[in-house]
């Protein structure tokens, strides 16, 4: 883990002295609604960033528009609160041109999946070196309560008084579908799990998508209650851990196996035995199994919801490939004076002189 982190952040300058949560807290008053899940995520991120040991000035947070997108204002790093849906595009320009920066994108379900869906998939596809924190509250908050692209079918909201007609996106499935190199899911209220996922995302050089289930008490309260209520959550949550058999439920009595038709099935562990269970392999080159895991969830009831790291594979990143091409072109050209080289280029081969 620490080796991975060191490798992932090799180009980011190290901090001279240890930093604290305070160093990452800006002087701006936080203005989310009381009880909003965003507070917990902000606190977790502020507490977690110091452990990376990189310079504060080499961290950039970029956001789009929505409640979650106010995030950069509250962190004392470089930051940009941009326009609706475009944060991944803007952050791509930063990441592609500055490998010495650690770039984070903060976005929501409407921002990332509706208006910005195109940028999201292409940023993941290109394996840009940045981490996308997607706060999914399954509703539009800032515009006051319309259904979002992750709202369940039939959702009754201000803009869908008779129920929404749409099927929701599963952000993890979407990211795996475009072969994102790091895909994970966590929950705002589980500080430990959230921090652990952030840690793994930070240790990944390349595009990372972290879906964070986030409660919006104003417009979609308790949307994830079944995953939080200590009485029942174990029946709903599947905690993924690399190298471990996939089992869940009270007493870990349920497990996941691959059925003969190649789909995944939930079984009683007692009936099939531990050895029959699927062992989670987050580092598998092929995202097929991770995708199948993401499809286990019932989008309406949230039954069988895996959390944790679905996929984490190392692939060349866009900035690495770009730097490599720039370097190769420079090598081929040799070490001439750039001003002279440019003059020569501009003149071209067909010139004539008038005296």
């Amino acid at each position: 883990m620490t080796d991975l982190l060191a490798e992932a952040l090799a180009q980011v300058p190290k901090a001279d002295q240890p930093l604290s949560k305070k160093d990452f807290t800006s002087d701006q008053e936080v203005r989310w609604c009381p009880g909003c899940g965003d507070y917990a995520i902000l606190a977790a991120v502020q507490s977690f960033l110091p452990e990376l040991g990189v310079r504060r000035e080499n961290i950039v947070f970029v956001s789009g528009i929505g409640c979650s997108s106010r995030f950069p204002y509250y962190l004392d790093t470089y930051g940009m609160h941009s326009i609706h849906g475009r944060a991944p595009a803007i952050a791509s320009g930063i990441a592609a041109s500055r490998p010495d920066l650690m770039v984070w994108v903060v976005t929501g379900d409407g921002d990332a999946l509706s208006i910005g869906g195109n940028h999201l998939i292409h940023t993941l596809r290109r394996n840009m070196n940045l981490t996308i924190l997607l706060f999914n509250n399954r509703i539009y908050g800032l515009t006051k309560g319309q259904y979002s692209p992750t709202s369940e079918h039939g959702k009754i909201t201000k803009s869908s008084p008779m129920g929404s007609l749409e099927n929701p996106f599963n952000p993890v499935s979407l990211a795996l579908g475009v072969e994102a190199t790091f895909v994970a899911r966590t929950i705002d209220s589980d500080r430990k799990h959230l921090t652990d996922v952030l840690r793994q995302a930070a240790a990944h050089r390349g595009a990372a998508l972290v879906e964070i289930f986030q409660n919006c008490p104003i417009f979609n309260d308790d949307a994830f209650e079944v995953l939080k209520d200590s009485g029942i959550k174990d029946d709903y949550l599947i905690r993924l851990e690399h190298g471990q058999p996939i089992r869940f439920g009270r007493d870990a009595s349920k497990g996941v196996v691959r059925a003969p038709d190649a789909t995944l099935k939930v079984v009683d562990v007692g009936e099939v035995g531990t050895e029959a269970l699927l062992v989670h392999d987050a580092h598998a080159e092929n995202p097929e199994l991770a995708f199948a895991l993401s499809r286990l969830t019932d989008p309406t009831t949230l039954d069988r919801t895996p959390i944790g790291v679905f996929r984490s594979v190392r692939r060349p990143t866009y900035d690495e490939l770009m730097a490599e091409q720039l370097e190769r072109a420079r090598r081929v050209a040799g070490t001439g004076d750039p001003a002279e080289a440019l003059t020569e280029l501009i003149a071209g081969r067909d010139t004539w002189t008038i005296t």
Partner: protein
Amino acid sequence: MAKQVVQVDRVIIRFAGDSGDGMQLTGDRFTSETASFGNDLSTLPDFPAEIRAPAGTLPGVSAFQLHFADHDIMTPGDAPNVLVAMNPAALKANLGDLPRGADVIVNTDEFTPRALAKVGYDANPLEDGSLDSYRVHPLALTSLTVEALRQFDITKKEAERAKNMYALGLLCWLYHRPIEGTERFLRQKFSSRPAILDANLAALKAGWNYGETTEDFSISYEVRPAALPAGTYRNISGNLALSFGLMAAAQRSGLPLFLGSYPITPASDILHELSKHKRFGVRTYQAEDEIAGIGAALGAAFAGSLGVTTTSGPGLALKSETIGLAVSLELPLVIVDVQRGGPSTGLPTKTEQADLLQAMFGRNGEAPVPIVAPCSPADCFDAAVEACRIALTYRTPVLLLSDGYLANGSEPWRIPDLTALPDLRVEFATEPNHDGAFWPFLRDPQTLARPWAVPGTPGLEHRIGGIEKSDGPGNISYDPDNHERMVRLRQAKVDGVAASIPPLEVDDPTDRARLLVLGWGSTYGPIAAACETARAEGIDVAQAHLRHLNPFPANTAEVLRRYDRVLVPEMNLGQLALLVRGRFLVDAIGYNRVRGLPFKAAELVAAIKDVIARD
């Protein structure tokens, strides 16, 4: 047999054929030979948007016009002296532009009943006397080429395809152009296909020899080199000059160039060109869409690059919101719009100037953006440097308005001394600027530019965004007075650019003109040529051309008031005229055409006379 040589001072040739006939290549090569011979020249490629429109049809005709002379010329010419028509469609589509007595070289092999019927000729125009007022040179170009290439080991189709080189060879003979450059070019192009190379070289030479020996061409023409100012020249198109201008600006600023772009006609060649120059540290990013193109460029600018995005009208519409963000963030950014016919998809390969008001006002809120427009293909270089200068100095997005004619047209260009270009070095913020704190919106009192503090600079961590910011500290502010102040400050900053631009110059040789012709962008050449013609006829007329459309040069009002009448020719329905009327209360008279083609000097002469006749 010694043939007669006639001296002429200028010639306009138009090559026309099917999209697949290689007319653009033929024109390009003839242009290169003409350039290296030392003539002044100006070109106008005119091709369909379809890559291979149906063969032999009128919409499929692709043409390339070249005007070259022994003196300074300003336009690709109104009416061709020579038309090379590779098929009936090419003849029919272009005949209307020819003056009586023009030479017409036609490929008779293509004048089959079927081909004639396809474009609606009832009778063969080569036989029915309808071309009697032209000097027609019927030439069995295809069969001559196939015959000349008999000994080569290539298919008949491949041999036929070399007919454009045969035609080029003939034209080179006719106008005393060298062919060595084309030979070199062919050697490079077909280096991996020796048989095709030999065939093309032989066709070129055969065309030349045909001119030399046939009775049909008894006269050849010589156009002496033009007496251009001393210097080393090359021929250059607008898109290429613009690409080089961006690279030169990057070098003069010491910043890496970052282009975020999405393919769109006629701007894509800038993306293609810049993507070749990675050795200069140029990063090109082909984005998923227009919005991501400008988004990435803006992100790169935030991180310390010279950020540029290139597009055409429909793309500019998509980029509006991000341009507004750049206005609000006050970051340097250059947006290149190579205008084409609109609205919507419009005429992708044809020229127009109808994005001026979109550039000026096409954003929500008060979002002023400086606008620079080049006036000729070669001027795209200087205009690009100027756009970068304004962006970097004032920390603002700048719109560079080229157009399809400038993009693809070409002319000789005196290669500039890069060290003589303006020093564009930028000072990034490195220190806190306010009581030990960093205020990202504390402005330079002179330029009103805000500090540019790039990520990685310790102690200057700050957040900026599209929400209104407090004047100075830059924190979110909904305060009414602050908003008003910030709106006015952003406007004042852009207005202040006027202090750094040269005054509007007027060309009024007699000093007696009562009529001023005011233009902008690519209409410079035709307007200048029209004014010259009018003056030669004894008409007093003044010309002024705007390179900066926002802000206007400081003396613009004063210049306009000096004249009784102001005529504004534009390839739109009166966009500059609207601005001029609104800004200066001047009763500007428009001359407006939107045919997808540059103005002809003659129509502007008529427009000038028309305005003068009103008095």
